[in-house]
C-alpha cells in the first residue's frame, strides 16, 4: 500500500538501450493491453535515413496490461455480491423517505462490510492451501488482496461509526473501542490464553503486558476476570483494584449526562485519592494499571512507545479521559493525540491506512475520498462508499461547504467503475448494472461497449441481445445480428445467415442473402436452406426480395409435388407482382414454359397474354439493355450476362417462349370460347 510511487516501465533491451532506452507504445484495439517497443527519438532536424546499426538487433514488442486484483476467482464473488447490494441500495434510494430508512442504510453498509469480511476469510483460507504456498507469485497476490481489503474494511467500519449514525448526542467512544478491538485481535487472543491458564497465568511473562494492553484497549471486563484469577487476588490491593474497575461509571443511552458527569468525577477523585495514599504500592504492576486508568500521561507515554499504530490506543485513552466524547469533539482529541504521538515517535512513517484513519477522524472526508481512489482495488471502495454517502445524505452540508458536487462525483465514479467492469473480460454482466445508473452517458456507454464484447457462441450472443433488448438498444441488437449473419454467411451456413439477417431486420442484408440464394438457384438448380425458407412465415415481409424468394419457393414446392394448377396461379401472381429481380426474369419465364406446353392446358388465355406481355415488356428490354452494356466489352455475349443453367442462349429461349405462348393462347381461346356457358 505504498502510495505516491508512480509505477515505471522500461524496456532495457539492446535496441532500446542503443537510443537511450526510449520507447513508443500504442493501445491494442479490442483489449486493454498496450504494445511497447523501442523507439528512436526523431526531430525535425534528424536525417531521414536508416541508422548504421539498422537490422542488427531484433525488434522486440512488449505487451503490458494493467494489473488487477480481480483476476483472482475468489475476488469475483466480492464483485458479484456487492453488485447485488448496490442494486438493493438503488431501489432503496427510490423508495419514499421514512424513519426506517436510516436503519436500512446502516444495514446496507453492514452488508458491504460483511461481504468484505467473508471474502477476507476465504482469502486467508485459500492462502494456506498448499498449491498457493508453493506458488510465490500467487501467494503475493493473495497477500496484496488481503491487505487492501483489510484496510478497506477497517476504514469502512470507522466511517460507519463516525458518519452513518444519528449525529446528535451520540457517544463514539464505545463504538471506537469495538472498532479497535476488531482490528487488533492479538491482545484478546492472549487474554483468552491467560483466562484458560487460570491461576498459573500470573507466572506468565506476558501477564502484565497483556493486562496493560487490555486496559489501553478499554476491555475492562476481561481485565477484571484475569485479575480475579491472580494468586493474590484476595489481597487488599487487588480487592481495591477490583472495586475501582467495578465501580467505573459507564454511560448508557437515556442516562442524564449531567448525572453521569458528576458520577464520573466522583469516581475519578476516588481513584486519585487511592493512588495518592499508595493503596496499590505493594503491587507496582497493578499500580501502573491504575495509573493508566487514571489517564496518567507518563504511564501512557511509556506504553505508547510499544504500540503499532497511532490510533491503536486512542479510543482507550478517550475512555478514561473523555468518556462522553462526541464526533465533533473527536477532531480536537485526535489533533492533540497526534501531536503527542509525533513527539514520542518522531521517526515514525505514516502508512496510507493510518493516514486515512486520521482523515476520517479529523473530519477531512474530502482528502479521504481522494486517498481512497489511490487504493489498489480498481475504485471498488470509493465507488460504493460515495454511492452510499450520496444516498444517506448525512454529509450533504459538508460537501456543499467544500463546494463538491456530490451528485456529479458519484455519477462519474459509478460510470468509471461500470466501464471498467464492462471492458474487462467476463465481468460485463456486472458492469452493465452500474452503467444503468448513469442516465444518458451510461446508455451511450452501454451502446458502445455491448457490441464490443467478443461473441464466442450463440448462447452468449443471446444473453447480450437480451440485455440490449431490455434497454431498447435496437442498434446494438441489429449490429450483433448482422455480425453473426455475416459470420455464418462467410462460413457458407446460409440458413443460419438468413435467420440472423431476419433478426437484424436489416433490409439490405436480408435482400443480399435472398439474392444470393436466388442466384445460386438459377445458376445450379439447387435451392439452399429449404427448411429455413419454409418456416420463415411472416418474417418474410422484411424485404420484398425475401417475399419473392419464399413465394417462389412455394411455387417450386407445388411444381415438385406436381400440383401444376396451383403452381401456375402462383407463377402468374409472381410475374405480375413487380418484385421479381432482373436477374431472375429468364428463370421465372422458363418455369412457365413446361406449363404452357403441357398436354392439358393449365394457363388461361388472359394469363397467357400476361406472360407474353411480361416477356416483351420486361425481358426483351432487359436483354437489350444488357447487350448495350456488354457491347462495350466486345467478346461478351448475353449468354454470360444471364448465368442460368438452363439458358444456353437467351434469344433461342425468347423464340421458344413466344411460340409456346402463341400455341397455348390458341388452345386456351378455343377451349374457353367453346366451353358450355351456363
Amino acid at each position, binding site marked *: 500500500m505504498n502510495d505516491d510511487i508512480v509505477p515505471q516501465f522500461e524496456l532495457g533491451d539492446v535496441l532500446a538501450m542503443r537510443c537511450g532506452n526510449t520507447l513508443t507504445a500504442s493501445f491494442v484495439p479490442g483489449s486493454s493491453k498496450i504494445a511497447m517497443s523501442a523507439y528512436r527519438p526523431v526531430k525535425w532536424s534528424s536525417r531521414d535515413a536508416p541508422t548504421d546499426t539498422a537490422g542488427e538487433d531484433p525488434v522486440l514488442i512488449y505487451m503490458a496490461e494493467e494489473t488487477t486484483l480481480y*483476476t483472482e*476467482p*475468489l*475476488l*469475483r*464473488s466480492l464483485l*458479484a*455480491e456487492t*453488485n*447485488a447490494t448496490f*442494486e438493493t441500495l438503488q431501489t432503496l434510494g427510490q423508495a419514499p423517505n421514512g424513519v426506517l430508512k436510516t436503519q436500512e442504510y446502516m444495514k446496507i453498509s453492514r452488508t458491504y462490510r460483511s461481504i468484505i469480511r467473508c471474502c477476507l476469510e476465504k482469502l486467508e483460507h485459500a492462502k494456506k492451501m498448499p498449491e498457493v504456498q508453493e506458488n510465490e507469485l500467487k501467494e503475493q497476490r493473495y497477500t496484496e488482496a488481503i491487505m487492501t481489503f483489510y484496510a478497506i474494511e477497517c476504514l469502512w467500519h470507522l466511517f460507519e461509526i463516525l458518519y452513518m449514525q444519528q449525529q446528535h448526542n451520540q457517544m463514539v467512544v464505545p463504538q471506537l473501542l469495538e472498532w479497535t478491538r476488531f482490528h487488533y485481535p492479538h491482545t484478546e487472543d492472549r487474554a483468552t490464553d491467560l483466562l484458560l491458564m487460570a491461576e498459573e497465568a500470573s507466572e506468565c511473562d506476558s501477564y502484565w503486558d497483556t493486562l496493560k494492553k487490555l486496559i489501553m484497549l478499554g476491555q475492562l471486563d476481561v481485565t477484571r476476570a484475569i485479575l480475579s484469577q491472580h494468586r493474590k487476588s484476595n489481597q487488599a490491593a487487588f480487592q481495591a483494584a477490583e472495586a475501582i474497575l467495578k465501580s467505573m461509571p459507564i454511560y448508557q443511552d437515556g442516562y442524564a449526562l449531567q448525572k453521569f458527569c458528576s458520577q464520573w468525577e466522583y469516581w475519578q477523585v476516588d481513584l486519585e485519592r487511592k493512588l495518592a495514599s499508595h493503596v496499590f504500592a505493594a503491587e507496582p504492576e497493578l499500580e501502573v494499571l491504575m495509573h493508566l486508568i487514571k489517564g496518567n500521561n507518563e504511564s501512557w507515554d511509556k506504553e505508547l512507545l510499544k504500540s503499532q499504530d497511532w490510533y491503536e490506543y486512542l479510543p482507550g485513552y478517550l475512555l478514561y479521559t473523555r468518556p462522553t466524547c462526541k464526533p465533533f469533539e473527536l477532531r480536537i482529541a485526535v489533533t492533540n493525540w497526534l501531536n503527542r504521538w509525533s513527539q514520542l515517535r518522531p521517526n515514525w512513517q505514516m502508512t496510507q491506512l493510518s493516514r486515512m484513519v486520521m482523515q476520517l477522524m479529523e473530519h477531512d472526508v474530502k482528502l479521504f475520498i481522494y486517498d481512497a481512489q489511490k487504493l489498489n482495488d480498481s475504485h471498488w471502495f470509493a465507488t460504493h462508499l460515495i454511492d452510499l454517502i450520496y444516498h444517506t445524505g448525512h454529509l450533504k452540508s459538508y460537501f456543499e461547504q467544500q463546494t463538491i458536487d456530490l451528485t456529479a462525483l458519484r455519477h462519474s465514479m459509478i460510470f468509471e467503475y461500470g466501464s471498467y467492469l464492462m471492458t474487462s*473480460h*467476463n465481468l460485463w*454482466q456486472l458492469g452493465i*448494472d452500474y452503467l444503468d445508473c448513469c442516465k444518458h452517458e451510461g446508455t451511450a456507454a452501454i451502446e458502445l461497449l455491448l457490441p464490443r464484447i467478443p461473441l*464466442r*457462441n*450463440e*448462447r*452468449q450472443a*443471446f*444473453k447480450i441481445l*437480451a440485455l440490449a433488448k*431490455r434497454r431498447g438498444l435496437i442498434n446494438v441488437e441489429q449490429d450483433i445480428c448482422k455480425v453473426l449473419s455475416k459470420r455464418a454467411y*462467410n*462460413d*457458407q*451456413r*446460409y*440458413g*443460419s445467415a438468413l*435467420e440472423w439477417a*431476419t*433478426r437484424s431486420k436489416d433490409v439490405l442484408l436480408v435482400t443480399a442473402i435472398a439474392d444470393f440464394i436466388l442466384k445460386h438457384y438459377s445458376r445450379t438448380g439447387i435451392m*439452399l*436452406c429449404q*427448411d*429455413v425458407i*419454409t*418456416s*420463415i*412465415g*411472416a*418474417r418474410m*415481409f*422484411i424485404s420484398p426480395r425475401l417475399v419473392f424468394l419464399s413465394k417462389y419457393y412455394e411455387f417450386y414446392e407445388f411444381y415438385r409435388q406436381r400440383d401444376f394448377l396451383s403452381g401456375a396461379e402462383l407463377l402468374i401472381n409472381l410475374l405480375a407482382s413487380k418484385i421479381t429481380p432482373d436477374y431472375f426474369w429468364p428463370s421465372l419465364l422458363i418455369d412457365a414454359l413446361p406449363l404452357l406446353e403441357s398436354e392439358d392446358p393449365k394457363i388461361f388465355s388472359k394469363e397467357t397474354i400476361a406472360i407474353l406481355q411480361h416477356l416483351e415488356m420486361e425481358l426483351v428490354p432487359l436483354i437489350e439493355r444488357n447487350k448495350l452494356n456488354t457491347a462495350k466489352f466486345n467478346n461478351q455475349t448475353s449468354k454470360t450476362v444471364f448465368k442460368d443453367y438452363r439458358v444456353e442462349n437467351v434469344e433461342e429461349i425468347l423464340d421458344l417462349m413466344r411460340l409456346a405462348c402463341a400455341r397455348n393462347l390458341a388452345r386456351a381461346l378455343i377451349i374457353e370460347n367453346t366451353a358450355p356457358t351456363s
Partner: protein
Amino acid sequence: MATKVAAHYISEKVSKVRWLPEKLQQSDRFVTGSWDMDTNFVRVWRLHSNPYAENVDHTPRCNDKVAMENDVTGLEFVNNDTLAVSCADGHISILNVQRAVEEDQIERTARSERLHEFKCSKTSAPCTAIAVYGTDVATVGEDGCVNVLNASNLKQVKRTIEADSMSLLAVTYVGQHQLVTANRMGVIRMFDTRSGGEGQPKIAFMAACQDAKSSNYVSSIATHPMQQHILICGSEEGSITVWDLRNLEYPASYLSAHNSPITDIGFHRQDPSKLFTAAEAGEVWMWSEKKTHIDPSQQDGKSAWLSGDRVRALVNVDGVLTNIRKAVNSFDVHGTRLVCGSDTEAVYIVDDIL
C-alpha cells in the same frame, strides 16, 4: 409457501446445475458447470449443515472439480454416478462421481471426438444441449446436427442426423428412439434415431409467438414424466407452448409467462403436477395443477396442460425466486429442494419447495 432461499456466491457464472441422483433420500450433493470463465469447471458440491447463521440450514462446499475446455452447455446423469457433459468446443465428456464419506471425487473417464463442426471452415461448433435416454446420449449443436452416442463408448457415434440448417438449441427424448429438437427459429422437429438420412419422418411444427414478424427461439423443451405425449417448450418471448404429440396440427396450449426468454423448463421428477420455469430476467416460477379443481372434462385422464385456454384456470403460479435480476440459467429439483445456477455467480438453494 414457506420456502427458504439461500444464496451462495461461488465466483463462477453457472450454466448448468444438477442434483446427484438418490433413490431413497433427499440428495445433498449437486454438480455445477460454469461458462464464460477463464477456465470452466464442473464441480461437485456437498451440503453441509451450517452451524452459524440461523436462517441458512446448509452451506454447499466444493469437494472436487474437473477443468473443461470451454463453456459447459449441458449436464445430465446417465446413471447414479456417471455424468455426461457437453461443452462449447463441440465435444462431450463422461465424468464419474465417487461418493465418499469425507470428500467426494469427480474425474473424467472419457472424451468424445469433435462431434459438431462447421463444415466449411472446419472449426468446432458449440454443442448446445444434451439429452439422455438409458445409456444413449444425444447432442445437438450450432451446426444443426444431432449426434447419438452410447455413454459407454464415446469413440463411436451411433447416428448423425443433419437435422437443420441453423443451430439447434434444445433436444429431448420423447421415446426410446424418438428425439425432439428445437432450433433458433422456434421450429421443433422430431427424429427417429434408428433411421439415417432420407428415412427420417418429416415432422416439424412451430412454437407459437405473439409477434409473428419477430423470431422466437425455443430454448428448452421437456416432456411430462408420466404422460410422455405432453411436450412443453419455453421460448424466447417468455411464453410456454404445450403440444400433444398425438395431435400435432396445432399446439394444445399457449401461455404467456415471463417477460424475458425462458432459459430452462422442467417437471418435478417425483411430483409431475409441478412444473418449473426459469427466465433470463432472474425468475423461477412454479406452476402447480390445482388439486381441488376437478371438472368432468378432466376425468378422462386429460392433463391440465392440454386444456388450451383453460390452463390458466387449472394451474397456479408461484414465484419461487424473483428479483435476482440476472439470468437463472438452470435449475434442478429433487424432493423438496431446488437448486438454481445463475449469472449472478451464485447458486440458490430453496428448501421446502412443495
